[in-house]
């Protein structure tokens, strides 16, 4: 029986770094270090004399370079001329197929009676209806019920709920699932959101979708578990390091918790960017009427995903761009995306057409403010409420029309002016300089501004009890 001849090693000196691992692998001492610097690499490749070579192959096993010591290609003679590597190894970088989008399916839901559920549950249902079957989370009051509902429902839908070791782990599990192209989300509250921001920056950099429901609570630090609008600044201007932005939605009813969660998934995939939902502790706990939508979504797989199959093999999810010009180009691209997101502004203008006193508020304080508007109208005062639903991008054009007749503007919020700062920044950026002095009703520490406080501000005196 004739033994098949084993190939002897072959080396292009350009791909040898001269580490010498092959030297002691060779029992025949065929390989030696040299002192000749290779002019192309500046390194000193090994020198081979294959006279005694028995083609044992151990040198090739020892070589760490993919294109280092290799079996001699057939027909290659020892004193061969340097060839173009592309000719030797082929020009095709990969035989991986060109991925295509596997689209989501919209499936009809039968009409049902409205549910009576709390805000966090409504948001969880919204996520399930949007096709999210991968939820990661770390318990934190007052957002935990959302995660609890997911922990109960997802196993019954063959979905995945994992209680992560921390919020840092949570956001990175989301990074993985989002990288695989699937919808994913978490429930958290302010201190937890702070911890997630590293990962949010990576998700934005790597252009990954994902939905963060942040039920804001009193801060800074451990603060307390009562409602505050404490993270507006963080969501609109502080999403980790780098030039980061994300659409930020501010629901004010349990119904909106469901609707905006569904919308968040849609926008998140549309722009390949995280979407933040800011709720407040009240809204998370508030029970109300929630009508389910007409459809549910069965998600597809986008073409950019790293799903772990043949179709998506050529993809990479990354936020690193080592070359400065590459990273600048990436930032330009991200900024173009942020600009494109400006069409997504949403706002509610309640009785603003002729409003002389314009209240501006979002989340639960917007409902207190709405109560005020009605009360003020009863008293013959032309009041209106402007409620931004997207805090970023800020609905400045909507505000501009809502404030057309305003003689007074009162920002009502449960924070030290975080919403007001958004209003002022948006006005400034839009070049709107002619507007009344901005007044404010602010509470902090877990206390929401109450209707009577707003009334007092607007009327200039404390109202007698009705």
């Amino acid at each position, binding site marked *: 029986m004739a033994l098949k001849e084993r190939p002897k090693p072959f080396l292009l000196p350009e791909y040898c770094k001269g580490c010498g691992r092959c030297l002691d692998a060779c029992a025949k001492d065929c390989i030696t270090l040299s002192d000749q610097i290779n002019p192309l690499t500046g390194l000193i490749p090994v020198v081979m004399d294959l006279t005694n070579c028995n083609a044992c192959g151990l040198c090739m096993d020892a070589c760490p370079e993919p294109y280092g010591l290799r079996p001699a290609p057939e027909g290659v003679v020892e004193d061969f001329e340097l060839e173009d590597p592309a000719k030797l190894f082929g020009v095709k970088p990969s035989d991986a197929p060109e991925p295509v989008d596997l689209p989501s399916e919209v499936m009809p839901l039968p009409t049902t009676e409205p549910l009576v559920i709390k805000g966090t549950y409504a948001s969880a249902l919204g996520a399930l209806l949007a096709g999210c079957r991968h939820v990661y989370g770390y318990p934190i009051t007052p957002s935990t019920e959302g995660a609890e509902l997911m922990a109960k429902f997802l196993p019954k839908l063959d979905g995945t709920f994992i209680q992560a070791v921390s919020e840092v782990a949570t956001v990175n599990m989301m990074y993985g699932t989002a990288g695989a192209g699937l919808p994913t989300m978490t429930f958290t509250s302010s201190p937890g959101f702070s911890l997630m921001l590293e990962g949010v920056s990576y998700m934005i950099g790597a252009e990954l979708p994902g939905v963060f429901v942040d039920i804001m609570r009193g801060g800074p630090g451990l603060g307390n578990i009562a409602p505050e609008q404490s993270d507006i600044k963080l969501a609109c201007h502080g999403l980790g390091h780098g030039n980061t932005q994300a659409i930020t939605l501010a629901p004010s009813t349990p119904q909106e918790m469901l609707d905006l969660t569904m919308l968040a998934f849609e926008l998140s995939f549309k722009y390949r960017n995280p979407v933040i939902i800011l709720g407040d502790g009240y809204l998370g706990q508030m029970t109300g009427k929630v009508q*389910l939508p007409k459809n549910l979504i069965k998600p597809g797989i986008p073409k950019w995903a790293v799903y772990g199959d043949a179709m998506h093999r050529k993809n990479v999810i990354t936020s690193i761009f080592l070359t400065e010009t590459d990273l600048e180009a990436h930032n330009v691209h991200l900024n173009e995306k942020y600009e494109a997101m400006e069409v997504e502004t949403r706002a509610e203008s309640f009785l603003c057409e002729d409003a002389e006193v314009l209240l501006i508020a979002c989340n639960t304080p917007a409902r207190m403010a709405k109560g005020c508007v009605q009360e003020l109208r009863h008293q013959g005062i032309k009041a209106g409420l402007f409620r931004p639903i997207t805090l970023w991008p800020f609905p400045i054009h909507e505000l501009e029309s809502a404030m057309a007749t305003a003689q007074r503007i009162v920002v009502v919020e449960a924070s030290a002016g975080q919403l007001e700062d958004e209003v002022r920044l948006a006005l400034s950026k839009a070049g709107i300089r002619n507007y009344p002095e901005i007044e404010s009703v602010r509470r902090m520490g877990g206390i929401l501004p109450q209707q009577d406080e707003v009334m007092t501000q607007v009327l200039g005196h404390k109202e007698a009890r009705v």
Partner: protein
Amino acid sequence: MSKSSVFYDKFERHSHGEGLKGHATHYCPGCGHGLAHKFLAEAIDELGIQDRTVAISPVGCSVFLYYYFDVGNSQAAHGRAPVVALGHKFANPDSVVVSYQGDGDLASIGLAETVATAQLGAPITIIFINNAIYGMTGGQMAPTTLMGQPTATSPAGRNEYMGQPMKMAELIAGLDGPVYVERVALFDAKNRIKAKKAILKGLKNQVEGRGYSFIEVLAECPTHLKMTPEETEKWVKETMEPIFPLGVKKDLTVDPWFKRNPPSFSGEKLLALAGATSEHPERSCKGFPKHLAPHDISLKLAGSGGDGAQTAAMLIARAAINEGFDATHIPSYGPESRGGTSYADVHVAEEEVLNPGSPTPDILIAFNAPSLAKFGPTVKKGGTVIYDSSVVADAPSLDPSVKMVPVPFTGIATDLGKAVVKNIVALGALQAATGIFPKETLLTAIRVALKDKCALIPLNEEAFAWGIKSVESLAG
């Protein structure tokens, strides 16, 4: 032996594949990464899993793993690779996910993720490159730096004030989650064969759904150890290996267990879970109870935790919504809800609840004296206060326009044999005292809430009836 087909034919991602970079790695001469890459590529090849593989590149010198491997690639934040790996694995259980990490990544900044993921035990494969030093940041102390070893941040050698080297293979093997843990090395042909086998086994365990595998590779970093490649191999063998002994640390025989069904997107299933029904509840209301407030009635229910104020509040909200009105319920929550004061704000609106808070309620239901004292004075003029006369001896004097309705919630409930139904007695009293909704409206809400505990329905109906009777007897 030959270049594995798992490596790209040209490293386009390495400086756009220009010049030699198209076919050379970025690793220094003598670096251990190249061999570990090669063994990983060969194992992927041998198992025929190139299409299914997702390689997680962490921060560290191997951050550019995706330059070379023609597989799905995902690059992770420093230390987070194992949880990114989990995110991929659960997204597609058929994928084969490899988390390839250095010592700073795995044993320092990502320790929480490393340990938690190991203990979770889902089948992923961790390849841990331990070279006792930080490479990418330029030779600082690693968690695995040896005692006495000088580094950029331990210039006089690591000493007792800098802690001891982390023995990760032993630590991971001590957990219940992993099925296979081995420490291997690259410094000679014999050990290279073992390393190759270990990586293959770690992947195979995943492919077969047997569980989590961890392969620690003692690797060389000549650049930062400031030695020649040959000296570094010797250093790993003679100095490092005694501290980090090679070998299998754990190898369990485990049947394949990781099998996940594809997620369900059945609308029917989801609606059932949500408790949504197409059945239209019977409506009994003729119109909005405008005698209480024109468009929006605000209620407050206050008591101690366990009084059932929240349940009663929820039932009022449900009853209202079943009748086609809008309603909201905000509970007090947090530490307060655990045995302390428990109060609920409820609104019932003809069209839309504007302000869901009830700072000045039209109706107060007080389950104890402190609640009555606290919230009684906030009740609107002409409003109604219903309170538990079994526990409130002296009601405070409120505005004369406020209607006071004393009902012995506790007494009635106790007589019925179940103190917990006192909130239902209160609902009966609410109905009789205010006429907010017809009896049937509230009873329907109670029956629906108890649909899984039908046996309790008669008792609750009785409690409700007694609440009504009690108010009627006051009038009489």
